């Protein structure tokens, strides 16, 4: 990123973000402003100086590099003319999700929700949806970490009501 033009990169303002576990991240201002939560920290807050550290209470430092990478790449995709080919965007998105466990995905969804960035949240929630598409009820429970609080009779009745929906599922 910064290597592309060293003269301008020195002029780009940086904003310091503090992850939940206290780790600091220096981020170029336009990238930081992709996050509505960061933006609203400065906009409408006259006392806030650009050199203040913005605390991001719900984002663990583990996910910060990936999330910032997403913003950088996607804002570049948006600005580029002509727009990047769909395959390039798809390749980036697939690489982004590769090796991410279900749990990591959920944590990032919570982070995107907290950071209030629609693009990232949409992307991650759709990814989560794809992982539970056509999966069994048991799989979905495990995925979200939900305990089954139905009695066996209740569950049997609910399944019987819509039997058709429980057939022909993908293997867990």
């Amino acid at each position: 990123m910064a290597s592309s033009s060293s003269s301008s990169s020195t002029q780009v303002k940086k904003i310091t973000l503090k992850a939940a576990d206290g780790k600091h991240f220096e981020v170029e201002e336009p990238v930081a402003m992709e996050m509505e939560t960061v933006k609203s920290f400065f906009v409408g807050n006259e006392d806030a100086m650009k050199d203040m550290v913005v605390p991001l209470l719900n984002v663990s430092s583990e996910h910060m590099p990936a999330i910032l990478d997403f913003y950088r790449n996607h804002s570049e995709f948006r600005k580029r003319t002509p727009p990047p080919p769909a395959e390039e965007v798809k390749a980036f998105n697939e690489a982004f999700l590769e090796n991410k466990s279900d749990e990591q995905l959920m944590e990032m969804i919570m982070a995107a929700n907290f950071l209030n960035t629609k693009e990232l949240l949409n992307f991650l929630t759709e990814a989560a949806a794809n992982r539970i598409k056509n999966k069994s009820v048991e799989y979905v429970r495990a995925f979200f970490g939900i305990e089954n609080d139905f009695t066996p009779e209740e569950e049997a009745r609910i399944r019987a009501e819509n039997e058709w929906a429980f057939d022909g599922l993908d293997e867990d």
Partner: protein
Amino acid sequence: MEGGVDDEVGGDGDRLSNLPENIVRHILSFLDSIDIVRASAVSRKWRYIWVSMPYLLKSLELCSIMFMDSLSLANFVSSCPHLENLRVHECSFTDDDIIEITAASLKDLSIILHERSMLFKGPTSREQTIQFGLKVVCPNLVSLKVVSLRSHKFSFQEMNSLQNVLMDFDRPDNNLDVPQCCHALSKMLKGVCNVNALKVSEVFLESRSFRWWTKPNFPWKMPNGTTSCLKYHLKIVELFNVADDKHELDLVRFFLENGYVLQKMRIFWAGNLRVNGKRIYGTENTDEFISEVMKFPRSSSNVALTFVEPESRISFYD
């Protein structure tokens, strides 16, 4: 990776079920309805999660519902981006406002309002006076059916895909008067085929059909000058409940004279209505009516005219 999920469940248990409901709904919104149905068996909290997801709906039938205002229907419809079929049957509204249906995805819209005989059981008993209007803005609508509309306050916009229209006005003597009704008809013919539609319509509109439910002793005074709909698109006209009165002849004449691309016209005779042996309404002299019709000038060289007896008539609502 799979082991990780199991560990999680065995570990701090319900941690992720604390996922905010808006996020759960957001995730589910990407799934098919069959996945959502299955999701209702996940847990008590998820049992009725689909109820709060109107945007899943493709087909919706609302029967005998009383809306406190026409806005609530409009808002509900606009929160369903996938809605393709909407039926609003025998529903009532407690205000006189315009019912606005704006839905880009909608293909089939059917609004059947109360018959006059239906009693309005609302907080106010204004059944006779309520004349809400209708505004339909549905660029992909193919089929439109409006029955018992009691007001001429209606408008159709962006209806470039529309192929089938069925309109029936309820015209109690005390309210929609004759000029209003004529105005309504000409407005409708204009509204379903505006200038923009003209450009695309010759490609897209294969068979535009038109059904009109006639009212007894109703003098039709048709607007002079034809609309683009009649000139270029209208191929089928069906007139229902036709008795042998002069005003209906005028209506037939109007379509024959101005329907340049008309292919088929079917006239369904009204059944006879007798009280104490005295005919109060119905068809007496169909032969005369037919011979009159045959004399009318026609703009289309190729119209198949059919007259249908009441016994064999198909339902207007088909």
